């Protein structure tokens, strides 16, 4: 889909190349993450793909076509672009910002409106509330969402994203990442994603390009990057807790134990006692009649409230849950933050899927260590 062939970029007045003889191929429908320390040439590489910069040497192909022969405007209209600073237009409202590319493509007004509402919904912003607001009235996370929506407006098959979630707090970032991955699973776009955060790279990438001083040091999938770093530089980049980093690669739905005992809110006290006796944690999750998680009943709760008739009366709300698209690393942070030994896993409709315990996470990490050692 995208192919870089001996690409070198030397900025005028500079001796050292910013990008040095880069060769790589990005497959259709994959997320390719460029990662490396500041100044290693990630942004420069990305900007050559939409011809903001022209390579000093080498060729870049998109869909087999040499891009130096494509009109830059035509090329760019087919490539979604999110820059690190987001770059929303401050004098235009959110709808007008998102409509930028469709307007350039001269779509009819009603089609543009429809598409704007659709996209805002996709990125989790209520069109009714946000359509007419100016960027200055949005939070950092909301601006990032608008930036992504704007890049996706004309449904380009390719997206270039330069640290698109860089300017938000870690919790918002994790949420944006998860939403983005869920979306990408359906859309299957070809994405070049720049970050200097190795955790983000491992989480987001189908393939990771580790760069150093303009050179490509290793280009492989995240598993391989973690288990066999090409040299000391990559090993340092990846860091020492490699097996813990692998928690980024596994999603809650892959690791969830679904055979845990649970109660329905109408269950009698007898079955509540029974199930709690049987459970390891001396506590059992409670769901409503549509399998949605209500909370938890523990042995202590039974002692305290003798008047309760059914499980629902006793259920205490809990915070230690994650959605099933969260990574095991997210699950671990929730456990550590709340001091719990497990998390409940729910789907996006808040239906209970099961639980993941700290022990389960240790198993994953241990397995990896064993595999790495062998």
């Amino acid at each position: 889909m995208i192919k870089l062939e001996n690409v070198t970029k030397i900025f005028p007045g500079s001796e050292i190349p910013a990008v040095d003889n880069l060769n790589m191929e990005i497959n259709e429908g994959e997320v390719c993450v460029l990662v490396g320390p500041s100044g290693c040439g990630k942004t420069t590489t990305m900007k050559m793909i939409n011809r903001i910069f022209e390579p000093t040497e080498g060729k870049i192909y998109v869909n087999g076509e040499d891009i130096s022969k494509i009109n830059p405007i035509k090329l760019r209209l087919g490539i979604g672009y999110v820059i690190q600073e987001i770059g929303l237009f401050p004098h235009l409202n959110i709808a007008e910002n998102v409509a930028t590319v469709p307007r350039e493509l001269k779509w009819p007004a009603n089609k543009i409106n429809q598409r704007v509402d659709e996209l805002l919904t996709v990125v989790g912003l209520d069109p009714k509330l946000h359509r007419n607001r100016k960027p200055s009235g949005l939070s950092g996370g909301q601006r990032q969402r608008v930036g992504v929506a704007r890049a996706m407006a004309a449904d380009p098959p390719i997206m270039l994203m330069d640290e698109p979630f860089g300017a938000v707090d870690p919790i918002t970032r994790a949420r944006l990442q998860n939403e983005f991955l869920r979306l990408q699973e359906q859309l299957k776009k070809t994405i070049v994603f720049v970050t200097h955060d190795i955790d983000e790279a491992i989480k987001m990438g189908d393939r990771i390009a580790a760069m150093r001083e303009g050179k490509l040091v290793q280009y492989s999938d995240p598993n391989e990057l973690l288990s066999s770093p090409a040299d000391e530089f990559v090993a340092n980049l990846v860091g020492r807790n490699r097996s813990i980093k692998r928690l980024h690669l596994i999603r809650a739905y892959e690791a969830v134990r679904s055979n845990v005992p649970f109660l329905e809110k109408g269950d009698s006290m007898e079955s509540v006692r029974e199930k709690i006796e049987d459970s390891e944690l001396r506590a059992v999750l409670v769901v409503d009649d549509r399998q949605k998680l209500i909370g938890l009943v523990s042995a202590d709760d039974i002692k305290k409230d003798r008047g309760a008739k059914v499980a629902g009366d006793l259920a205490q709300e809990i915070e230690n849950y994650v959605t099933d698209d969260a990574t095991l690393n997210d699950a671990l942070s929730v456990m550590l933050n709340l001091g719990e030994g497990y998390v409940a896993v729910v789907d996006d409709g808040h239906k209970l899927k099961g639980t993941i315990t700290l022990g389960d996470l240790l198993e994953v990490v241990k397995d990896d260590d064993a595999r790495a050692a062998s």
Partner: protein
Amino acid sequence: MNVFEFMITRRESLWHLTVEHFYLVFLAVLIAVIIGIIVGIIITYSYTASVFALTICQVLMTVPSMAMLGFLLPFFGIGFRTGMIALVLYSLLPIVRNTYTGIREIPNSILESAYGMGMTPWHVLLRIQVPLALPVIMAGIRTATVMVIGIAAIASYIGAGGLGELIFHGISRTQPYRILAGAILISIMAVMADLILGWVEERLMVR
């Protein structure tokens, strides 16, 4: 005769002079806006051109108004036309300079995302750069207008018309109330222009 009696008894001719003065200023600023914004935009594309144009404007500004009129007189003769040309030249600097800075001050990230998404340079100019620079351009127009309201009074000396006539007649006939009436009306016009254009500027700034 005191100034208020004078202003009441001669209100019709004063009104006539005020309209004339306003017309002179309005036309001069209008022409300067058209030329100034175009020049201001063009010079953002070339560093050399910007230095050249801004220096010329700067020099024009430092020429005393009497000297400017005296210089233009042999070419354009006595009357409205010479006054008009002088006023246009004076209004150019603030408008050219503010158009230029207004556009140059736009953060690079905004332009980069505009170009990067495939907007044509023409659309970037019309939909992004000019609208974003508009409050700054408006501030330049305001400065130019207020300044030219004052300078137009001097242009009356070479027969361009306007409220300056009151002042010059007052001086030659030693009738202080005439001078005062002219000065008062010019000040009122300047203050009103400043307030109204300031209000417009503020409205444009709301984002």
